[in-house]
């Protein structure tokens, strides 16, 4: 049964997919780096929700990616599932993180998720970017994007996860289903 929260999830994932494929896939930084809204959604969710909720939402976020990207359908769902779960574990250990540390978290998480996606793509027979200095520079840029966008991503994640901003997080998302 879809609760108000799930309708928010649906709205966010749909909007992010449309904006990603309609706009952000065409906007490249330095001709190489693409802002990936769905990775940002995963970032926000992973750093806001508990591991189980982050894993479930990561799965559905990845599924949204799978609809619009090439590669085996379900690959991003699997990768985002574990990425969300790992981020959720991180969040559990850094609940007291202040804003600046959150920024660092966002940068590291965005680069890590992207790198994990590339590695996963290679594992599942896709062609990832070559591993060289330029790729590392790209990951730094992606980290910078993550650092900038982690705070708005947090707000979006809160809108998806909590009934009212500022209230105690509902971390029993999976059980509520």
């Amino acid at each position, binding site marked *: 049964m879809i609760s108000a929260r799930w309708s928010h999830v649906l709205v966010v994932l*749909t909007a992010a*997919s*449309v*904006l990603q*494929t*309609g*706009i952000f896939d*065409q*906007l*490249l*930084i*330095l*001709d190489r780096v693409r802002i990936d809204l769905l990775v940002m959604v995963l970032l926000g969710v992973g750093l806001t929700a*508990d*591991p*189980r909720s982050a*894993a*479930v939402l990561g*799965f559905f976020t*990845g599924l949204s990616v*799978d*609809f*619009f990207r090439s590669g*085996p*359908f*379900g*690959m991003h*769902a*699997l990768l985002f*599932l*574990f990425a969300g*779960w790992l981020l959720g574990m991180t969040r559990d250990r850094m609940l007291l993180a202040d804003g600046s540390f959150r920024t660092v978290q966002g940068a590291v998480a965005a680069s890590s998720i992207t790198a994990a996606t590339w590695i996963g793509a290679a594992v*599942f027979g896709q062609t990832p970017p070559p591993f060289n200095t330029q790729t590392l520079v790209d990951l730094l840029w992606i980290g910078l994007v993550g650092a900038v966008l982690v705070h708005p991503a947090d707000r979006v994640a809160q809108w998806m996860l909590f009934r009212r901003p500022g209230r105690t997080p509902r*971390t*029993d998302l*999976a*059980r509520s289903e």
Partner: protein
Amino acid sequence: MAKSPSVSRRILFLLTVTALGLMTADVRGFGPIDSARSTALAVSSPFRDFVGTAVSPIADTWNGAVHYDELEAENAQLRLEVAQLEGDVARLPDIESDLDELLAATGFDVAGDLGRVTARVISDRQTGIERVIEINRGSADGLVVGMPVVVGAGLAGRVDDVFADHRSTVLLITDSRVRVGLNGVDSGVSAITTGKGRNDQLEVEFQAIDLESVQGGERFETNGFSELYPPDIPVGSLVVADDGSVFLIPFVDFDKLGFVTIILTEVTP
């Protein structure tokens, strides 16, 4: 409320199995997955188009700002290509004209099995007393002084001077130094034509006394009596003026000599 670790692991396991199942099904070509992807793309397409159109000025501005140098270089390259294309378009009529002339020059269909060489007219100098046509074929191409030069319409002249491996000059039949033996196609009357130095007329000197059978408009061709000109090469049509004088109008348009064909006759150099 605390969550049981086993429940989390179970959910993680179930979603992992689901994802792997979807991947396996997709790799094996499970139709509904393709349909779902297509449907998602189709349904979202209008929204994506709308969003893309709405923000395209922003995207263009972004790309313009980020790639300004590249855009400038690309712009310069495109300007160069446009200029080249405009040049090509401007040359198109010349190319078409060349092609027509080449087809006309090589479309000659008499002179039997004799060899032939097609040449391009590379200069056409007209002085007060003569016209010098220079072509890009010479001794290396087998040209010898005296060989007939034709175009599709008929006889144009003969090789006048072979002065290089790939250079010769041509004397047109309108030149007063050129005499050609002819036959009337209808009457069979023999004649000799001589150039008058003008492009539009050839002097005719009939060999027969009875000229009643000769009519204006009759077609005259080479008679083959001379070793220089094989028989049956069209030369011109007869014109009978009001004052009774006769002359030939050559078939060849000497103002459109782009290419010519030299018939490799057995001419003693």
